[in-house]
């Protein structure tokens, strides 16, 4: 150890500790798990969108060799409660019963009907085909507006309505009066198509029961092992302390594994019934039907402004497709967006209403961005329309309305207090990198020449609320749980360090980043830190990973826990060095006495001294380990400016992204390489919504885009290189100055791309193209406009 300054870990582009296993195949995906006597589950799913079940006969499946058991929904109903919805957004929300396996009615194609248990996966897949089910078809409910009419068939007939809830938020001046005094109003309807999250690892569950003591270990490809544990206790009646949940290696989530799954409950129920270990792994096509979808909204948005571009107010009416049931946070997703429609702009009036609607489709729930991409899309699209109406450059319109950097902290019209930001700086940097003026000149030239290939420029300036969340805010939003996070640090006798985190990573690089944070505070080498996560026995407290919360909340908890370790170690060091605590300095992991540099103890030495406990201060608890739980004071508000140039072939409808520049401000950065990766991936998913992806249903409620052949997850050949840069305005709401980054790219990019496409085609009379902007849709839009 030397007293020379050591380069801080935080801020370094450390290659990840996680990689070694993943690049050599030494992985532990849930489907890799094998134990003696493991049996395989196959689930029979409804082929119909809506039907009464009149008969289920599992006997033909049971006759097959290798089949151990088979159950209908009725067979498993005893001891299996309704799947939970943790976010009943209003007092009078309609909360339908949601059996993990349907008993008398199926409400979407893919609803589970029966489960077969067999000695291997092939036998199970064969046998499930032999189960006989009789259905009495009921009418599907697919159109969000028609579903709300009095004569609509009902998804849940016992509830008497398809209206799940109505959630209003009205702030500032009354919108009607603003509309009257406004010089300009623009009103549009936008469609948020349904998306399928497509984590590369399909969901999988393994349950190993210990019959003698009634204990169960549940392995699941989940983002939320801690929440799953609580909820499985509630759903199955197995006492919580008898359930251990492990999230082993998890191959992506994007919100799709922020779920308490029916299949987890089914696997537990079957394992309890037969007393043997079971595994369920979904196929991709099964996943398309059975894993929740994202988005699925109709947005009516109206903006009021003066001729000089000053915004006066915003009115938003949402219809949000819940799908057939309320999953863990289904009703809350549009509400997360409710606060983001005013975005970075100042205005006098905001009038928001969301109506949740039941349909006979796969339930919706969180998908990367969860409510905020939808909000950002609508406001950024209509800002472009308003700019056209006013004859203003879209960047100029934004500049005239955004919150100035000197105005922070700023309370938005929706009631959020944005702690920090600098929209001017991010925008200026982005415009320079993009060469905005030059591209505008080229665009004008192509328009002038009547070029068949037009150039469009799309602008998206965004902010978002993430880092979920202050628990009191969650209470006010009627979310059932809190938003705290836990970390504990164990100083091992040899001076090595274990960080135990309540976050549950599935690609984000928490092991690397938490090591960086802890190494800086403790003054230990990065390599000497290990991070323990994703197991309710090893890391018993946590609120898990979603909503770009892990670093902002969980990383901050690690920072505080490490500080506590240092504080405790300081007491031991002072005792051993026979100095007052106030006379000790702590630098690079070494306690030394001011003025006597030879009187020193390393934190590793203190760890061993504490382990032996031979000479600790009187009355001191013999440990320097520490735990810290943090409940954040505020959300974090990353922001940025995204610019996209698209070439649109007006003859083929083909769009090609020519350049994509984004400047994001995610505050202080722990690991710039990981941040860049998060932005890249976010952009890819946002662009995919703009150009490629849609879950398509036919008139009968069948998922037509039911396989990866029919649902276009973009490949490397479908995406451009991105220019990703940053500005750095530290968050003031946490000591690290960090903001969330996981969802930013997805939130910002979709409107940038669609704005560019519409911008390219506007001289031809096109005002909108519905997402995804496929060549066919673009071609039709051009044709329609020319008529």
């Amino acid at each position, binding site marked *: 150890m030397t007293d020379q300054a050591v380069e801080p870990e935080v801020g370094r582009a450390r*290659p*990840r500790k*996680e*990689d*070694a*296993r*993943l*690049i*050599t*195949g*030494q*992985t532990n*995906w849930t*489907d*890799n798990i*094998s134990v003696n006597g493991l049996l395989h589950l196959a689930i029979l799913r409804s082929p119909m969108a809506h039907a009464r079940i009149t008969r289920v006969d599992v006997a033909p499946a049971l006759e097959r060799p290798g089949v151990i058991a088979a159950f209908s929904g009725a067979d498993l109903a005893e001891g299996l409660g309704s799947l939970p919805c943790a976010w009943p957004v209003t007092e009078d929300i309609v909360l339908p019963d949601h059996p993990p396996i349907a008993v008398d009615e199926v409400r979407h194609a893919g609803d589970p009907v029966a489960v077969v248990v067999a000695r*291997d*996966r*092939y036998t199970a897949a064969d046998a499930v085909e032999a189960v006989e089910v009789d259905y009495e078809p009921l009418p599907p409910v697919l159109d969000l507006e028609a579903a709300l009419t009095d004569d609509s068939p009902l998804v849940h007939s016992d509830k008497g309505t398809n209206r799940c809830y109505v959630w209003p938020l009205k702030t500032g001046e009354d919108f009607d009066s603003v509309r009257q005094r406004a010089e300009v109003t623009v009103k549009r309807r936008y469609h948020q198509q349904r998306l399928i999250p*497509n*984590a*590369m*690892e*399909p969901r999988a569950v393994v349950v190993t029961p210990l019959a003698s003591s009634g204990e169960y270990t549940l392995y699941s490809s989940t983002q939320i092992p801690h929440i799953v544990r609580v909820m499985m206790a509630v759903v199955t009646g197995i006492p919580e302390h008898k359930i251990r949940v492990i999230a082993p*290696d*998890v*191959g*992506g989530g*994007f919100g799709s594994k922020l779920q308490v799954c029916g299949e987890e409950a089914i696997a537990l129920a079957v394992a309890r019934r037969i007393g043997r270990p079971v595994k369920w792994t979904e*196929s*991709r*096509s099964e996943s398309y039907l059975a894993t929740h979808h994202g988005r699925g909204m109709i947005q009516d948005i109206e903006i009021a402004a003066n001729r000089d571009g000053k915004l006066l107010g915003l009115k938003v009416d949402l219809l949000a497709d819940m799908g057939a049931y309320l999953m863990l946070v289904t009703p809350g997703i549009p509400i997360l967006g409710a606060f983001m429609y005013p975005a970075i702009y100042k205005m006098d009036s905001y009038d928001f209403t969301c109506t949740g609607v039941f349909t006979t489709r796969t339930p919706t729930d969180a998908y990367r961005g969860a409510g905020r991409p939808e909000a950002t899309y609508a406001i950024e699209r209509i800002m472009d329309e308003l700019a056209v109406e006013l004859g203003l450059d879209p960047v100029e319109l934004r500049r005239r309305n955004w919150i100035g950097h000197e105005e922070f902290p700023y309370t938005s019209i929706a009631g959020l207090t944005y702690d920090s930001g600098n929209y001017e700086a991010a925008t200026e940097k982005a415009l320079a990198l993009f060469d905005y003026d030059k591209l505008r000149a080229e665009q004008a030239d192509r328009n002038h020449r009547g070029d068949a290939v037009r150039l469009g420029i799309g602008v998206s300036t965004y902010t978002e609320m993430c880092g979920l969340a202050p628990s009191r805010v969650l209470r006010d939003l009627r979310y059932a749980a809190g938003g705290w996070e836990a970390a504990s640090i164990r100083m091992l006798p040899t001076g090595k360090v274990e960080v135990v985190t309540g976050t549950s990573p*599935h*690609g*984000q*690089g928490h092991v690397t980043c938490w090591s960086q944070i802890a190494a800086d505070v403790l003054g230990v080498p990065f390599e000497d830190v290990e991070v323990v996560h994703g197991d309710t026995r090893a890391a018993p407290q946590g609120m898990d990973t979603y909503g770009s919360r892990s670093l902002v909340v969980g990383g901050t908890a690690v920072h505080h826990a490490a500080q506590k370790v240092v504080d405790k170690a300081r007491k031991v060091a002072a005792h051993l060095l026979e100095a007052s605590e106030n006379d000790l300095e702590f630098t690079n992991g070494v306690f030394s006495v001011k003025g006597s540099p030879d009187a020193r103890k390393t934190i590793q030495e203190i760890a061993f001294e504490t382990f032996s406990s031979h000479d600790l201060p009187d009355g001191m608890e013999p440990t320097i380990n520490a735990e810290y739980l943090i409940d954040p004071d505020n959300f974090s508000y990353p922001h940025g400016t995204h610019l996209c140039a698209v070439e649109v072939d007006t003859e083929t409808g083909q769009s090609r992204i020519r350049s994509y520049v984004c400047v994001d401000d995610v505050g202080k950065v722990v690991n710039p*390489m*990981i941040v*860049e*990766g998060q932005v*890249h*991936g*976010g*952009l*890819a*998913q946002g662009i995919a919504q703009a150009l490629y992806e849609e879950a398509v249903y036919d008139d009968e409620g069948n998922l037509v885009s039911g*396989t*990866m*052949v029919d649902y276009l*997850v973009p*490949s*490397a*050949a*479908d*995406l451009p*290189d*991105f220019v990703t840069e940053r500005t750095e305005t530290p968050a003031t709401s946490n000591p690290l100055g960090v903001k969330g980054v996981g969802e930013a*790219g997805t939130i910002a990019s979709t409107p940038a791309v669609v704005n560019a496409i519409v911008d390219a085609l506007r001289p031809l009379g096109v005002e909108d193209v519905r997402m995804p902007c496929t060549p066919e849709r673009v071609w039709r839009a051009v044709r329609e406009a020319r008529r």
Partner: protein
Amino acid sequence: MTHISVKVDGTTYEDDVEPRLLLVHYLRDRLGLTGTPIGCDTSNCGACTVELDGISVKSCSVLAVQADGGEVTTVEGLAQDGELTTLQRAFHEKHALQCGYCTPGMLMAARDLLREHPHPTTDEIRHAIEGNLCRCTGYQNIVRAVQAASEEEVPA
């Protein structure tokens, strides 16, 4: 049942298998070589890509019996004596993976590319790996990694 003999990552295995058994299930469920994952059921995603007799194949689209007498290399057979390949190292250094689920297939597909075209352009890389889907990275760092590996003296 059909008797097969397959060499996988340097070890020869003899087994009786159902004729319909997919190679990927043979690797995972019979041999316990779980480094090769499964991401779809329509051969779109490429997560299960392995090398069979010198060419990359999606092991969900090959029957185990078709590999009879053949030689298979999986991601688990790339590093020798703990020494990573140039590509593996490049994936690590360029942050070409996040969750890592697509990584085995990406590595095998990129290896195939570099064998055929030792110095591909970025465009060639993007097209060569278009049968392998990644949901985390947006591909940019994968392309960078493959390119970096191609600039080394001993690629793949």
